[in-house]
C-alpha cells in the first residue's frame, strides 16, 4: 500500500489455551489485524502449535525457495539426511497485493542416522537448518519444530493470513506479528516469527546488541543469515534453555538482566546467581527496546526490556492467556477477560500448557514453577 503512515512500531499478539483446546486461526487473525496500524504492510507472520497432529513425531520443516532449481538441490540434501514421511507444497491463496512471492514447501521428517551419541536429533535438525540457510542460495527454513509451523512473508497481516490460509488451521497456541521494519530490509525471510526447532519469536523493538549477540552465537554454531535483529533471540533461547539447560525464567533473566544496582541489593545466594549469569552470558544480553513473545511446544513467554520501552499487555480468561501490544487487540477476540494487566518490565510472563509437565521439565523450568 502506498501513502503516508504513522511511524508506530510493530504489533504482536499471542493466544494460548492452557488446556490445549483448539483455537481457530480466525481468532489470531482478528487480533493481529486489529493492530495493523502498528505495521506498514512490509511483513507479517504467524506460528501455530499443534497444527500437525497427523505427524506428531516428525520435524515439520517449512522451507521457502526462490525458485524450482534451488528446491531440487535442497530436497536432495534433505533426503541425504532425513527420512521424509510426507511432503507437500504449503497451501496458499492468490492475493492481489502479493505478486512477488517465493515458493513454500513443508517436509515431515525424521533424522536418518545420527552421527554419534553426543548429537541429539534436535542438534542434527539445527545443523541442517543452519546449513540450508547459510549454504544453499535461495532456500531458507521458516520453521523446524515438531507439530508446529511458522507462516510469514511480505504484506499486511490480513494479506499474509489470506495467503497462507491461516483460517484453515486450528492451534493450541498462536503467536502473530505485523511488521514495521526500521533498520533492516522488508523481505520474506525477515518477517516474524523467527524460529529454530519449536522456538518461535515475535518482536516489537530493536536489538541494538545484535552484533555482539550474533558473534557470541556463532561460537555455538548459529549462523545469523536472515538480516534481521530478532533472529538472535530465537537462537539465544535455544542455546540457553535447550542446550545449556537453564530454566526459561533464567533465560529471561539473561536476555533482560537486572541492573547491577539491583543485583547488589539481592540476598546472598541470589546475588551470586545473577552475578554469574551476567558474567557468563554478558554477550547474550539484549540491549535496546523490546517486547517479545516466545512460543515453544510447552507454552508461551512474554518479555519486555528492562525499562519498558515497548508496550505489552496480558490478559487471562478461563484457560486462555492473551498477550499483545495493545489491550484492544486482546479485547477484539476476548471482550471481557477475567483480568488484564501490564507485565512489569524485564519480568517474564511464562504460561505453560497445563499438561506440559514433560516439555516443561525438558526446559528445566519445573523447579521455578
Amino acid at each position, binding site marked *: 500500500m502506498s501513502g503516508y503512515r504513522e511511524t508506530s512500531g510493530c504489533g504482536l499478539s499471542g493466544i494460548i489455551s492452557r488446556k490445549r483446546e483448539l483455537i481457530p486461526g480466525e481468532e489470531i487473525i482478528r487480533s493481529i489485524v*486489529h493492530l495493523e*496500524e502498528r505495521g506498514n504492510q512490509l511483513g507479517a507472520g504467524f506460528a501455530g502449535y499443534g497444527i500437525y497432529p497427523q505427524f506428531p513425531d516428525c520435524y515439520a520443516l517449512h522451507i521457502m525457495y526462490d525458485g524450482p532449481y534451488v528446491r531440487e538441490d535442497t530436497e536432495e540434501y534433505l533426503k541425504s539426511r532425513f527420512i521424509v514421511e510426507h511432503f507437500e507444497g504449503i497451501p496458499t491463496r492468490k492475493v492481489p497485493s502479493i505478486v512477488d512471492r517465493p515458493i513454500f514447501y513443508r517436509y515431515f521428517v525424521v533424522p536418518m542416522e545420527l552421527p554419534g551419541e553426543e548429537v541429539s536429533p534436535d542438534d542434527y535438525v539445527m545443523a541442517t537448518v543452519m546449513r540450508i540457510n547459510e549454504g544453499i542460495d535461495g532456500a531458507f527454513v521458516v520453521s523446524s519444530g515438531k507439530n508446529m509451523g511458522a507462516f510469514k512473508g511480505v504484506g499486511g497481516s490480513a494479506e499474509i493470513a489470506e495467503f497462507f490460509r491461516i483460517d484453515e488451521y486450528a492451534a493450541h497456541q498462536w503467536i502473530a506479528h505485523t511488521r514495521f521494519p526500521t533498520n533492516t530490509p522488508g523481505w520474506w525471510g525477515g518477517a516474524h516469527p523467527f524460529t529454530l526447532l519449536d522456538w518461535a519469536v515475535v518482536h516489537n523493538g530493536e536489538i541494538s546488541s545484535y552484533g555482539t549477540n550474533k558473534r557470541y552465537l556463532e561460537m555455538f554454531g548459529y549462523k545469523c543469515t536472515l538480516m534481521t535483529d530478532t533472529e538472535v533471540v530465537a537462537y539465544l533461547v535455544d542455546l540457553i534453555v535447550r542446550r545449556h539447560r537453564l530454566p526459561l525464567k533464567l533465560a529471561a533473566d539473561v536476555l533482560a538482566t537486572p541492573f547491577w544496582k539491583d543485583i547488589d*541489593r539481592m540476598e546472598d545466594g541470589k546475588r551470586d546467581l545473577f552475578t554469574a549469569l551476567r558474567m557468563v552470558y554478558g554477550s547474550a544480553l539484549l540491549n535496546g527496546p523490546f517486547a517479545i513473545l516466545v512460543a515453544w511446544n510447552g507454552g508461551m513467554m512474554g518479555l519486555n526490556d528492562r*525499562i*519498558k520501552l515497548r*508496550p505489552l*499487555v496480558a490478559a487471562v480468561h478461563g484457560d486462555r492467556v492473551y498477550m499483545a501490544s*495493545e*489491550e*484492544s*487487540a486482546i*479485547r*477484539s477476540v476476548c471482550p471481557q477477560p477475567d483480568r*488484564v494487566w*501490564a507485565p*512489569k*518490565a524485564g519480568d517474564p510472563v511464562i504460561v505453560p500448557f497445563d499438561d506440559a509437565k514433560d516439555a516443561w521439565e525438558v526446559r528445566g523450568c519445573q523447579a521455578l514453577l
Partner: protein
Amino acid sequence: MSGPFVIDAKEMYYRELNQIVRDKVKEGVTHFRLLNVNGQRYIGAGITRDVKIEVYGVAGQDLGVFMNGPTIEVFGNAQDCVGNTMEGKKIVVHGLAGDVCGYGMRGGKLHILGDVGYRVGIHMKTYKDMVPVIVVGGKAGDFFGEYMAGGILILLNLWDNGSRPAVGDYVATGMHGGTIYIRGEVNPYLMGKEVGQVEITSEDELLLKGLVEDYCRDFAQHGLDPEVILRSQFTKLVPVSLRPYGKVYAY
C-alpha cells in the same frame, strides 16, 4: 440538545470516528457518547471547544492529544499516551491507563482511577497560569515524573494489595520543575538523583485538598472519601536543581 450524539464505534477505523466527531463539533454538538470503542486512536485530538466526550470501551493511543477544551470520560481502560501534549480541560479514566500518560502535558487535568504504566507525567510543564495536574488512584510504574518540568503529579495508591510499592523505580529522574505528591512513604532507593523529599506545608495541604476533592467527585460511585484519603501521610518530592544536567551539556 435533547441528549448526547451517539456513535457506535464498533469496528470503525479511527480516522472515520474522529472525523465524525470533528465535523459534529463544528456543527455545534457539545456532547458525544462513543460506544464499543476498542483501541481507536487520537480521540478528541486537537479539539479546542468545551465539549463532553464519553468513551465506552478501551480508548486507544494518544487519547486527547493536543486538546484544549473538551472533557473526556472513559468508561473502561485507556491505552498508552493519554493526554499527550494536552493543553486544557479534563480526561477522566474509570479504569487503568498505559504508559506515558500526560506526556509533555501543559494544562488541564488527568484523573485515572486505577494503575498507570511507565513514564507517567514525563516532561509535563507549567507556563504562567497553566498548571497541568495528574491524579492517579492506583500504582505507577518506573520513571514516574521523568524529566518533569512543571505541574503537579499525585499518586494515591488507593487500592493497595501489598503486591508492590506504590511507585516504581527511578521516580522523577531528571525532574527540574513541578511537584510530586505520593500517598505513603517512598523508599529513597526508588528516587531519581535529581529529586529530593521535603516537608508538606499547610499550603500543600490546601492544594491537595482541592485536587483530591475534585478527583473524588469524578469517581463518586466508588465512594471515595477525600477526608480519609487526605488523613494519610504524603511524600512530597521536588527537584533539587532547575538544571540537573547543566554541568553535563553546558560549557
